[in-house]
Every structure is written in structure tokens, then in C-alpha cells.
């Protein structure tokens, strides 16, 4: 906690409707974010019970720099993932990190199960509020009700789930402040299993800057602020946004398209970031404490009735969404992509997993592995209306097939067949890069099977020599534990090099050396692997689906044996770390 030597943890028991605070000095050395959240998960997880058992914990943690330094905007959630059935970690921006900071909460541990649907309001105390009337409502409608019934506009954060979370879809996410998400690995289902519809946190407490720190704090803040706003270090995220990647990735044979049957998409130009910016981008907004404003909002209108009756819809988009709900399912223009994003948002699903699931289902349908009796309608790449209906069916578990599809492509393909073209790595649906060994191995071994674990796609794009790839993946995975513990938005990773991190920490009264930071990173990664081990996970079990070796990447076609050897090499490095 800021200028204190402990982490202030709020424990909430939904069953007993009780809460308490603990000041944990022992956790202080794990900084915050992923470090503290992983530790608290390790302490509270029940490996012998199902991921959706009421006893399982949900953990949130912000970090020592949250909001007080520019672009330190994220909160880390850890949980037992119902999707991969191993270590679950997901990150979200919005206002949550700020709201926690100014409610004097560094971490939250939620256990138990409410007696009926409830939402939490965390202000001066924790209120357990009736959410029965909201159960079944969309993310958007729930958000509007939460806003109407709580105070603190501008300095509060509102999390909520949609129907997919209520129905325990294993890749249901948690929406944070409308445009940000704990998207991946199924935190929404964990909320649903606890009958927890949402959480509102109000952050209106003052936190004094110690007089002796004032000068230093202002200097360091200003210097980082200037790097963020006056240099081009973060320009990519600000201007066209991450969807600027669509065209270059396509040109380098790395844009996963049509269920990864190809990495060169015929309509890439039509759904490029530049095209989105030109045709549908209406504004950008920011997480609290970020001057970049990378949240790109696209707008479309829909004629819902004759006589020029229109509704206008605003949705946020990013590279990952344009890939998953665009090229991966064959959509051909920004408006179609936005329409699909909109239904995914309303149901509260993870966008990447949903798009990849629809891609797999389309190919499986084409090949006759599943039939119209399963899907209830034909699937065709590029045909939007049926995909929109399918998203609702996934969220509500319409029939046995959609229930299976709601557990991800690994599960569904084991049940129906088509495992070779089920595009998951480590049980989590693939992100929007098929660049080479770095991406395939990096996502497979990443501790949360996210492209942000170690950015293997970036290692590929730097044309790293094959024999160096695994080492780079390991080093990046380790280093990012520092960034995500502080919790710095990874888009600002080039702003926050080690020197800047040390200065920033010093300005808020935390003195750490380079060597100490490295040791902390190691201990955090060890913690994650201890949890994984408890849950029966091993890097030995990774089996990369054949499709990843059939479709060309930036670095040519990949060899299965070589990839498997790289995974073994990574495992040896983890084994060494764990000694």
C-alpha cells in the first residue's frame, strides 16, 4: 500500500455476508498485481474442489504505482480457471485500479456463494445487495442499473457479468466500466457460480503525499508524463490503435483467418485498422490515469423498423477483436465486425474465445462433423446473422452442442471430433498472431496462455534466431511479472524500463534494486508454477493442434517436432527455476 509497508487485503465471504480487512506485511515484497494476486490465490485455492465450487476464491490486486504514475491502470484477477482448469489470471483496465487505490484496498479475496443473485457495493463498508431483478440482464443493462443505484460518478468502477457468466460458460468474462474486461479464462463463470452479478467500488478517500516525497514525486511523474505524451513511444496505441496490426500481419502471413486455414485474408484491407478509423471510429476514451486513450470506440446504426427508425450502438474494438470476430470468421467490413462484437459484449463473453469457437464450429459444420441438428442453423464463413444467433445460443446453453461449445474448442472437439483444427494453445483459444515458433510456443507455455505473457509474436517479428527463441520467451515472461505487479499497462512497457521503474518506485517510497526486482520476478513465476502443479498441470501435457503446423507463418511452415522440443526446452528452464 502506498507509503505503508503492508498490503491491505479485503476478504469478502458471500455465504456469510461478512467482510474483514487484513494488513499483510508478508505480502509487501510481492509488490502488488500479479505477485500479490498469485500469492493470495495460492493461499486460498482448493485444488481438490471443482473450479466453480463456492469455496474457490476470486482475487483482485492493484499495485504500488496504480494511478499515481501515468499509465499504471490495470488490476490483475486470479482464480481457478474453469476454462483451462488450471491457473487463471486475467487483467483489466478502466477505473478499477483507481477506485481500489482510493478506497485503500490493495487486494480483494472473495469466497463463498450468495444466497441469491447479489451485487456488492464497496464504499465505506461492503454492502451485499439484491440482484435478483438483474439476473438474466445484459452487461449493458446491468451497468445502467448499477450506475443509477450507486454514488461516486467519475471515481467509481463497475464490474458486471452477462448471461454467459450466469450460465457458467467457461470463457465468460467480467466487464469493467463498459469498455474494459477481465476477458480471458472464465472469471465471468466464477462470478456466476457465486451468484455474483457485479461489484461497484467507490474510490473517494484522500491519500496524502508525504511532504518529503513531494518534489521527487512531481519530478518523476512529470518525466514519465512527458515520455507518454510528447514522444512517439506509445503513438501506435493512440492513433489507429492496435488494429494497425491487421494489414502488416496479413502481409507477413500471420493473420489467423477462416479458422486458421490461412494467414493471408482476402478481405484484410476491408477490416484494417485504417478502414475502421475512416469509417466507424467516433471517439477514444482512456482508463483513469492514462493520457493515451487507446480505447477506440466504433459506432454503427441499425434500422430496427421501417420508416427510418434507427438505433445507434457504440462498441470498443481492438486488434484481437477484429481478428477473432472478423478475419477468423470471415467477416468483411467494420460494421459487420462491430455488430458481432456488440452481441458478444452484451452476453459478456470473451471475444477471442468466442470468435475462435465460431471459427471451429464453421469448419466442423462444413466437414460434417457436426450437423444442423447440433447447430440449429447452417454456418458459413462471412455470414453474420447466424453467428449473432449462435453467440446468444452459446451464452444461454441452447442445446447440448452449444453447451459444449461454451466450454471452448478443446472440449467441444474432444466431444465431437475436429481436434486437429481446434485452434487453442494450452486449452485457451488462440490470439491474433500466427507468426512462428515464438507465437505457438509462447502461447502454449505462457503462464496464462495469453499473447501478453511473453509476447512470442513479437519475438518472431524481430526475426530472432530459432535457437534463441525459448530463452527470449522465458526472459520476457519473467520480466513481465514486474510490469504486471506494479501494475503498469503493458502498452507502456517501453516507457517503463528498469531505470524508470526503480525511479518511480523510489518516488513513492519503495527502494528496490535491479537484482531484487529480478528475484521478485522469479518468485512470482515460481508461485504460479506451484499453483499449476497443485492443480495437476504440467508443461508435458501440451499438445499443439495440427492446424498450427499446416498453415504458413511469417517464418514459414512450422515443424511439429521442433515446436515440441522448444516446449521441452522451456520446461527444463522452469524446472531449473523451481529448484
Amino acid at each position, binding site marked *: 500500500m*502506498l507509503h505503508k509497508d503492508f498490503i491491505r487485503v479485503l476478504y469478502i465471504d458471500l455465504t456469510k455476508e461478512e467482510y474483514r480487512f487484513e494488513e499483510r506485511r508478508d505480502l509487501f515484497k510481492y509488490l502488488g498485481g500479479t505477485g500479490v494476486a498469485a500469492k493470495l490465490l495460492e493461499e486460498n485455492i482448493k485444488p481438490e474442489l471443482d473450479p466453480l465450487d463456492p469455496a474457490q476464491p476470486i482475487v483482485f490486486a492493484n499495485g504500488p504505482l496504480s*494511478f*499515481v504514475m*501515468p499509465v499504471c491502470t490495470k488490476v490483475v484477477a486470479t482464480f481457478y480457471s474453469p476454462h483451462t482448469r488450471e491457473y487463471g489470471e486475467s487483467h483489466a483496465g*478502466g477505473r478499477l485500479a*483507481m477506485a481500489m*487505490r*482510493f478506497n485503500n484496498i490493495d487486494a480483494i479475496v472473495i469466497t463463498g456463494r450468495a444466497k441469491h443473485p447479489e451485487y456488492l457495493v464497496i464504499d465505506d463498508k461492503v454492502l451485499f445487495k439484491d440482484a435478483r431483478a438483474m439476473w438474466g440482464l445484459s452487461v449493458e443493462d446491468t*451497468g*445502467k442499473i448499477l*450506475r443509477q443505484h450507486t454514488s461516486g*460518478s*467519475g*471515481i467509481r468502477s*463497475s464490474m458486471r457479468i452477462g448471461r454467459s457468466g450466469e450460465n457458467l460458460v467457461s470463457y465468460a468474462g467480467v466487464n469493467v*466500466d*463498459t*469498455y474494459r474486461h477481465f476477458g480471458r479464462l472464465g472469471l465471468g463463470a466464477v462470478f456466476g457460480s457465486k451468484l455474483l452479478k457485479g461489484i461497484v467500488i467507490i*474510490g*473517494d*478517500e*484522500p*491519500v*496524502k*503525499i508525504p*511532504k518529503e516525497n*513531494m518534489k521527487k*514525486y*512531481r519530478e518523476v*511523474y512529470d518525466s514519465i*508524463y512527458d515520455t507518454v*505524451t510528447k514522444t512517439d513511444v506509445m503513438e501506435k496505441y493512440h492513433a489507429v490503435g492496435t488494429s494497425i496490426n491487421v494489414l502488416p500481419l496479413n502481409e507477413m502471413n500471420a493473420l489467423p483467418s477462416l479458422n486458421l486455414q490461412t494467414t493471408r485474408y482476402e478481405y484484410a484491407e476491408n477490416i484494417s485498422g485504417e478502414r475502421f478509423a475512416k469509417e466507424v471510429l467516433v*471517439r*477514444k*476514451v*482512456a*482508463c*483513469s*490515469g*492514462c*493520457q*493515451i*486513450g487507446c480505447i477506440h*470506440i466504433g459506432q454503427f446504426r441499425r434500422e430496427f423498423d421501417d420508416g427510418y427508425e434507427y438505433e445507434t450502438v*457504440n462498441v470498443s474494438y481492438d486488434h484481437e477483436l477484429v481478428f477473432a470476430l472478423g478475419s477468423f470468421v470471415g467477416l468483411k467490413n467494420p460494421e459487420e465486425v462491430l455488430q458481432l462484437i456488440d452481441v458478444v459484449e452484451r452476453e459478456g463473453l470473451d471475444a477471442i474465445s468466442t470468435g475462435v469457437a465460431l471459427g471451429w464450429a464453421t469448419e466442423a459444420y462444413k466437414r460434417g462433423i457436426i450437423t444442423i441438428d447440433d447447430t440449429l442453423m447452417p454456418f458459413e464463413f462471412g455470414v453474420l446473422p447466424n453467428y449473432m444467433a449462435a453467440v446468444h445460443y452459446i451464452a444461454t446453453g441452447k442445446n447440448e452442442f452449444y453447451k459444449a461449445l461454451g466450454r471452448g474448442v478443446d472440449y467441444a472437439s474432444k466431444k465431437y471430433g475436429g481436434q486437429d483444427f481446434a485452434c487453442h494453445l494450452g486449452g485457451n483459444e488462440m490470439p491474433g498472431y500466427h507468426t512462428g515458433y515464438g507465437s505457438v510456443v509462447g502461447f502454449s507455455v505462457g503462464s496464462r496462455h495469453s499473447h501478453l505473457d511473453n509476447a512470442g509474436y513479437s519475438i518472431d517479428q524481430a526475426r530472432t534466431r530459432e535457437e534463441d527463441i525459448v530463452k527470449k520467451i522465458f526472459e520476457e515472461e519473467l520480466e513481465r511479472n514486474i510490469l504486471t505487479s506494479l501494475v503498469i499497462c503493458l502498452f507502456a512497457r517501453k516507457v517503463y524500463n528498469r531505470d524508470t521503474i526503480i525511479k518511480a518506485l523510489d518516488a513513492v517510497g519503495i527502494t528496490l534494486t535491479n537484482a531484487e526486482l529480478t528475484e521478485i520476478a522469479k518468485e512470482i513465476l515460481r508461485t504460479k508454477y506451484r499453483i499449476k502443479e497443485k492443480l495437476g498441470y504440467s508443461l508435458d501435457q501440451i499438445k499443439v493442434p495440427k492446424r498450427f503446423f499446416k498453415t504458413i507463418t511469417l517464418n514459414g511452415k512450422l515443424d511439429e517436432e521442433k515446436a515440441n522440443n522448444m516446449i521441452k526446452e522451456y520446461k527444463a528452464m522452469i524446472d531449473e527455476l523451481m529448484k
Partner: protein
Amino acid sequence: MPKVLRVVDRRRCIGCLSCRQACARLRGDYSPSNAALDVKTAGGMSGEFIITICMACEDPACMEACKFGALTKRSGGGVVFRKDKCTKCGACARACSVSAIRMDKEGYPIICTHCGYCTRYCPHRCIATKEV
């Protein structure tokens, strides 16, 4: 010439809260709740941002409402706050028709001094100081 703080273009606001943070910092606090200006959304993040600042009235209702002489007229508009005379009654905040005065946790009103420090931290130039 005296200067006053003005909202130049509200619609450009991205809601980063750097301005509120800057004001709070000047007041020795990290928390945006401890700032003389307010940025919030109307209708959630999908709605527009509202920026509430002291309007630097020539004939300030807040000053009129203060019966203890804690607010005096500021050259150029707005008021100057004298903490030693304040009784924390909150009449000034209630009198402001645009709700630009909030109370801090100690119960004192947070009065904008129109210093313009916040404007240096607006990445989109939504707010600026103008000579009057």
C-alpha cells in the same frame, strides 16, 4: 491581466483524469476526489464527459452565501478562500448553481484558485486559462 480557467472543448475529453490528479497533487494528495475540478460521465463510459470547473463568476453566489467572510472576490472572477474564517458549513457549495464546489474529507470547500496547473496535464487541451 488576471487569468481564469475555462473549458475550451469538453467533447475532446477522454476521461483520463490527469487534470483532477494534477489539482490534487498540488493540494498534496494523490486522490482525484481531492481536486477543485470534476470530470465524470453522463450515462457511463459510453456517454459524454462532463467537466465541472469554477466558472469564475463576477458576482459569485458562493461568496454571497458565505456569512463568515471566508470567500472574498478574486480579481478576474471567482473567489479567494480564507481557511481560517471557514466554519465548514457548506453553504458555498449549496449556493453554486453548477455544483463546482465540493467539500474535502475534512469538511472544507475545495476552491479553485484558477492557477492553471491542471491545464498542463490535459493531453487534449480541453481546458485552458484565458486572460480576462
